[in-house]
């Protein structure tokens, strides 16, 4: 698998898990049922809430669940990394997914420390 295929696979994985976790039957913030609408929508278009405090709490709950589920698949993406992007309401879901896919450490990815050791 070449680099561009690998990036595409990572993005697809993040897209599918983001969709599923946000569509949690016990805390549903995802109003979409098709990929194109979901990807083109902005972060603020998700059903996070009405009151700014409720929106904040809703995003924290999502970040917690998303982080746990990615970890279950051995994909590491920090809570802060998730929340920072969720705070950028004006970006599209697609743009956020791409950012998360770039930030996340997937099984087989070399960590920063491993890269430094290899460079030496």
């Amino acid at each position: 698998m070449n680099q561009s295929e690998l990036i595409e696979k990572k993005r697809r994985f993040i897209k599918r898990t983001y969709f599923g976790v946000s569509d949690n039957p016990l805390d549903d913030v995802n109003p979409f049922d098709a990929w194109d609408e979901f990807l083109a929508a902005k972060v603020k278009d998700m059903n996070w809430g009405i009151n700014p405090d409720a929106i904040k709490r809703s995003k924290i709950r999502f970040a917690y669940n998303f982080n746990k589920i990615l970890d279950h698949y051995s994909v590491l993406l920090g809570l802060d990394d998730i929340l920072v992007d969720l705070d950028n309401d004006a970006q599209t879901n697609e743009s956020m997914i791409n950012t998360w896919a770039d930030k996340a450490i997937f099984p087989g990815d070399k960590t920063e420390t491993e890269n430094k050791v290899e460079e030496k």
Partner: protein
Amino acid sequence: MKKALLMIACLGFGSLAVAQVNKNADTTAKKSIVEKSSSFKIFDKYGLKVDLKFIDPEKGSFGIDYQFQLDRNLLGHDPAKINKLNLSLGSRGFVTVAEDKNKNSSLISEIKLEGQPLFHVKGKELGPRTPIDLSAEDDPELPPGKDPLVDEARNLAAQVASPLWLSFNLHAKHETTQDFRNSDFAFGPQLSVSTSYLSAFLDFPFGLLRAAKNNNPRQLDLSVGYDYVTGANKTSLAPLLDDAKFMNRLNLKAEWETGIFSGNERIAFLFDSYYDLDRNLLLKNAGKDWNYFYMIRIEKLLKINLGPGTKTKVAVKYTAGELPPNFDKGFVLGGGFSIDF
């Protein structure tokens, strides 16, 4: 190229706005106005949202609906932990050019120190990890409803989700009318709970009206706060307070939403109430000891392809009640069709 943010609210197919306002706190006389209205989103970035609203187009009356919030993390920089201590600064309100057109003259600016979240009940453990295999083949054409990984993530989220979250804040609020002639300060703590424990009960009637599987409730948000209010003698409540400057107030808030009908309709409820703990008789007799504000919104996402990055929806929103500092009665029923670019 920067995308301009613009919301066009067209009320062409049956919008209605009804407003009723009680100007004086100690009278029950009400004034009714039926009007058309429309709004334009003029800014939505960096935590600041500004909508331009035309409330009486024939006379050229319009106003600005604004809301902003800035947060700074003070404690809890560990990326592995969800618990944080934040300093939050925010303001929200509606300002009209013609002052007498303002049905909800309430501008609230607030500074908060918040433990967000303070505590949460842990969800179920997920068992051994199952590392993903990125080289495995999958069908990119599968819609989300038929994608096995989406379904698996949805089920795992339901297992791992915490059913109860607690947050806490200490706040100081400045509550004023738009002309700043009536204002007060309120200080106090607030405890907030987000929970899915009551979802099955609350969602029961809506579940009966729902066909789609992926249109479920969001967790219920409940807040209980105490406000020590100073400067109450500078509000229209003053004649009811026996020259007292202070009030002890309980603030209850609730917010919840769920899906109805097919996959694209949602109903949302917001309730915000203020209760006088001093049990002042004059306030009670004037019906001002328990003031509340609520909103009911029904929204439908429309599947109209107007190009990438656009979202179309139709919404009907009903708001009624009283807001600080004066707690003047008012209600607004509005509906509209909007396009988000």
